[in-house]
């Protein structure tokens, strides 16, 4: 087999050679711009690099103009140590500790091969966190699927759950939260988002930059194979005379064991002070790592590509540049540290290879067996990609959708105690509200021994410092139905819910990450949803004083012309001085009083009830006032700090009734509840008004609690009391239901709540 490698010399000599840029997804004007930058045609390797680095996935070319708002509207916050643009943002949590966290999508790979797609999604975000110098300490996975009982959900869901668990469990990271949401729009396009949290001391923060002329570029981790380079084989086949190389897999296979070694090895070389800059290899592999490191650093790099250890000797240089093989990292190491660096890698059985060095040429030069195949200004690859102002407009159907409100006269509501009882039993078993234990019991939540709260609690919480008890809480949320009804307020509502969930557990919200899952940006209506959601999130973050530290955009989530619900998943991170003071969701003590904080209104648009019972989506989502949200957060945090409440739970999907049921099921103790006089029992039970929480107050603290709410002018309504003797067996007993009393035995509720997913996906333990 002979191989013609397209060199820079060759490119200069054959300026008119036709190149398959369109097959690589490069637009004619983008191709022209590459030629202009290089002042010649690109070599095949250069074309490969530009094509992948200028792709939507890597360059954010459609979203960039909107995402700028996160910077432009950035609130004043002392917490931000490293901002957007790095692998992940870094937040100061006090005592010299810093935390980095980020959420990313792996939607499309997970649809093709659910197990490996989900597994490598976890692996990728963990390496992002690692490359900041942090030890990954927890993961969470916001997931979205088609209807629970759809045949294709049965294909993808078990594989995705097993993949998330298989990778995270084997890596030794506790999975502390996340979401599982079902909606028909995700049937042909499930969403697999993965979040990772990492911790470090301030002095351990590392950045992706190649500084120091003469420093070595060291690739370490797994060998490079042909993973995830489907598209580039267009180029490969043109450089082979004998009909092309072996078929390249579009599926990337993860090796969590390798990743575990990579984590320990990377942290050891970082803590030994051997490393100048570091970058993980994810999408666009070596192309991305070398160009970004060079672009962020002194400005030049010389790479000898033939030194890259290969798993498959038939790979062409273009393919090596593009390969998305997992579990690889790239470090910039001063020559005097190289020996020690390689020694530590050997200790962990991690292969490390010096593939190049930092130069002062301002160029990224890549050689292949003595011939130059890439000679580019790195910034043009990594940062100066195309920027699109995609057209967008408000969908023509938006007004009709918003006018279709789920008022009592249009959607039948329960009007008797027995009808409400039936509704309760339906709702508690509804796939979106039912227990997700089938999923979360496949995740290790204990490993590392610092998990203070995990699912189904409102947020995941881990202890960061074993001596002081300082810890962080994280929650991710998004109601895509709200976002469809009104993307601007839907994004704010997602932010508000995640912010509230963090506060509910007693932590002070500090910072925000996001994973913006949308349909095609080439559809002006989708682009409008996107622009509105970004605007809403940016405005919301400014109002709440929580900066966006980073995130991810995933476009083209659609089946045919039908886009998914706009799904701006928002992750909020908070800090708690002492995790001993966390607020759990379950009540424990008879006689404790149950209060609802906030105002309940007749708001059902986009609610779980409208979706589950009527398959209805229309109207305007619940109103959202972030000043009130902030006040609620302050009350929840102050109550935790001052020991005024023993339990708290966010009120969101499924309203107050679902919140009470979840608290009762978690504790196993019953309660007596009464519907407030001014509220319709059904509205009390299932309205999804924002900015509410259920809290449990010891009688001895009631006056202080009331005073605190009054001082902040925040409504608090007593709705019940914890009572193990409310009925003959443990039960929620609800008084004032259309002149009747509803007795809801916990055993009956549990039977409904816990059996939905096992009935669909097969039994597991317990």
């Amino acid at each position, binding site marked *: 087999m002979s191989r013609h490698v397209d060199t820079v010399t060759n490119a200069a000599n054959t300026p008119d050679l036709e190149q398959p840029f369109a097959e690589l997804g490069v637009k004619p004007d983008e191709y022209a711009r590459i030629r202009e930058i290089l002042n010649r045609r690109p070599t095949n390797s250069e074309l490969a690099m530009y094509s992948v680095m200028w792709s939507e996935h890597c360059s954010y070319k459609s979203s960039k103009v909107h995402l700028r708002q996160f910077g432009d509207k950035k609130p004043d916050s002392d917490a931000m140590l490293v901002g957007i643009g790095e692998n992940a943002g870094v937040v100061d949590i006090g005592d010299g500790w810093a935390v980095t966290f980020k959420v990313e999508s792996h939607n499309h790979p997970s649809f093709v091969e659910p197990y490996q797609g989900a597994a490598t999604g976890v692996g990728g975000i963990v390496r992002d966190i690692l490359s900041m110098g942090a030890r990954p300490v927890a993961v969470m996975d916001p997931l979205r699927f088609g209807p629970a009982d759809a045949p294709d959900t049965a294909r993808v869901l078990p594989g995705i759950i097993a993949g998330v668990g298989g990778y995270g469990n084997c890596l030794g990271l506790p999975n502390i939260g996340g979401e599982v949401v079902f909606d028909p729009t995700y049937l042909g396009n499930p969403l697999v988002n993965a979040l990772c949290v990492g911790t470090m001391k301030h002095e351990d923060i590392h950045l992706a930059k190649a500084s120091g002329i003469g420093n070595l570029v060291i690739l370490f981790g797994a060998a490079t194979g042909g993973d995830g380079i489907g598209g580039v084989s267009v180029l490969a086949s043109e450089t082979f005379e004998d009909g092309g190389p072996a078929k390249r897999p579009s599926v990337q296979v993860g090796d969590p064991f390798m990743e575990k070694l990579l984590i320990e090895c990377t942290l050891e070389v970082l803590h030994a002070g051997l490393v100048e800059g570091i970058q993980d290899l994810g999408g666009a592999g070596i192309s991305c790592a070398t160009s970004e490191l060079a672009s962020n650093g002194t400005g030049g790099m010389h790479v000898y590509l033939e030194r890259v250890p290969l798993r498959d000797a038939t790979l062409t240089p273009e393919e090596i540049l593009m390969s998305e093989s997992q579990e690889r990292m790239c470090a910039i190491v001063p020559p005097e540290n190289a020996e020690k660096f390689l020694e530590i890698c050997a200790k962990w059985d991690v292969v490390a290879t010096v593939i190049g060095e930092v130069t002062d040429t301002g160029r990224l030069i890549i050689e292949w067996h003595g011939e130059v195949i890439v000679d580019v200004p790195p910034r043009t690859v990594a940062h100066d990609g195309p920027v699109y102002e995609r057209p967008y407009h408000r969908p023509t159907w938006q007004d009709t959708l918003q006018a279709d409100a789920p008022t009592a006269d249009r959607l039948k509501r329960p009007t008797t105690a027995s009808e409400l009882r039936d509704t309760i039993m339906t709702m508690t078993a509804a796939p979106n509200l039912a227990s997700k234990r089938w999923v979360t019991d496949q995740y290790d939540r204990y*490993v590392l021994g610092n998990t203070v709260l995990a699912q189904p609690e409102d947020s995941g919480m881990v202890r960061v410092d074993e001596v002081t008890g300082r810890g962080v809480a994280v929650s991710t949320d998004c109601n895509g139905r709200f976002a469809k009804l009104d993307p601007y307020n839907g994004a704010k509502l997602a932010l508000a819910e995640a912010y509230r969930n963090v506060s509910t557990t007693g932590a002070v919200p500090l910072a925000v990450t996001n994973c913006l899952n949308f349909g095609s940006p080439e559809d002006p209506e989708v682009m409008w949803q996107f622009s509105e959601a970004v605007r809403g999130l940016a405005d919301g973050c400014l109002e709440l004083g929580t900066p966006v530290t980073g995130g991810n955009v995933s476009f083209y989530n659609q089946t045919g012309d039908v886009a998914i619900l706009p799904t701006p998943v928002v992750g909020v991170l908070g800090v708690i001085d002492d995790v001993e003071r966390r607020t759990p969701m379950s009540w424990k003590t008879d006689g404790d009083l149950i209060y609802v904080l906030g105002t309940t209104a007749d708001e059902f648009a986009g609610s779980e009830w409208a979706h589950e019972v009527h398959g209805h989506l229309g109207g305007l989502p619940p109103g959202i006032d972030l000043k009130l949200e902030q006040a609620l957060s302050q009350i929840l945090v102050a109550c935790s700090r001052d020991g005024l409440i023993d339990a708290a739970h966010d009120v969101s999907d499924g309203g107050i009734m679902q919140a009470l049921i979840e608290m009762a099921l978690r504790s196993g103790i019953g309660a007596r509840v009464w519907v407030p006089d001014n509220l319709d029992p059904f509205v009390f039970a299932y309205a999804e008004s924002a900015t509410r929480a259920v809290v449990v107050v010891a009688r001895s603290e009631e006056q202080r609690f009331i005073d605190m709410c009054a001082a902040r002018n925040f409504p608090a309504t007593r709705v019940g009391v914890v009572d193990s003797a409310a009925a003959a067996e443990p039960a929620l007993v609800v008084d004032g239901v259309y002149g009747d009393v509803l007795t809801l035995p916990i055993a009956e509720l549990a039977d409904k709540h816990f059996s939905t997913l096992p009935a669909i996906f097969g039994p597991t333990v317990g």
Partner: protein
Amino acid sequence: MSAQGARIGVVTFPGSLDDRDAARAVRLAGAEPVALWHADHDLKAVDAVVLPGGFSYGDYLRCGAIARFAPVMQEIIAAANQGLPVLGICNGFQILCESHLLPGALIRNDHRHFVCRDQRLQITNNTSLWTRDFELNEEIVVPLKNGEGGYVASDNVLDELEGEGRVIARYLEVNPNGSYRDIAGITNARGNVVGLMPHPEHAVEPLTGPTTDGLGFFTSVLSSLLQGAAR
């Protein structure tokens, strides 16, 4: 010797995950944790050894199959046969079985899923070096998390284990992985080597565990050392 002076080794294999947790449990029990490295032929003169949970060498061949050949295991096998107290938790249990320090094997859970849950157990032996601080038939709750935790052995072996009182813990309420005769942990005839599928090291602090019941295993070995029962 005093319990305060006890040094308990925790082995780290490539892919060990619960080694920090095991070290923390040792510390909370009142002993000094000593890190042992898989590639060393050195037990650093420890008084006892914990093989922690995880996925040693990725558990890619069979769980524990590759770890068994690690240099440190050659030392541990020899020392265990001389009476050194050894506790294998989860992956450590699998390694002890692969090393033939304990009989039987651990196979894929009968329901084929990884499972993580708070598991009720009954302590059915309080004479082994790792269980003597428990009451006989005491019920405890500790986390269980495994994909390949089904304990299997021939009927002869199972009869022998039961006949000699070498089943140290059984699953109560639910058998989470299809283990024969609800066996959650066993010991060797001498009582110094114990294998346990659930994770006592995750139940040592009220803050992070469902209970603190797991501490009993670690305090047991300290009592054993203090009483000179070991060796």
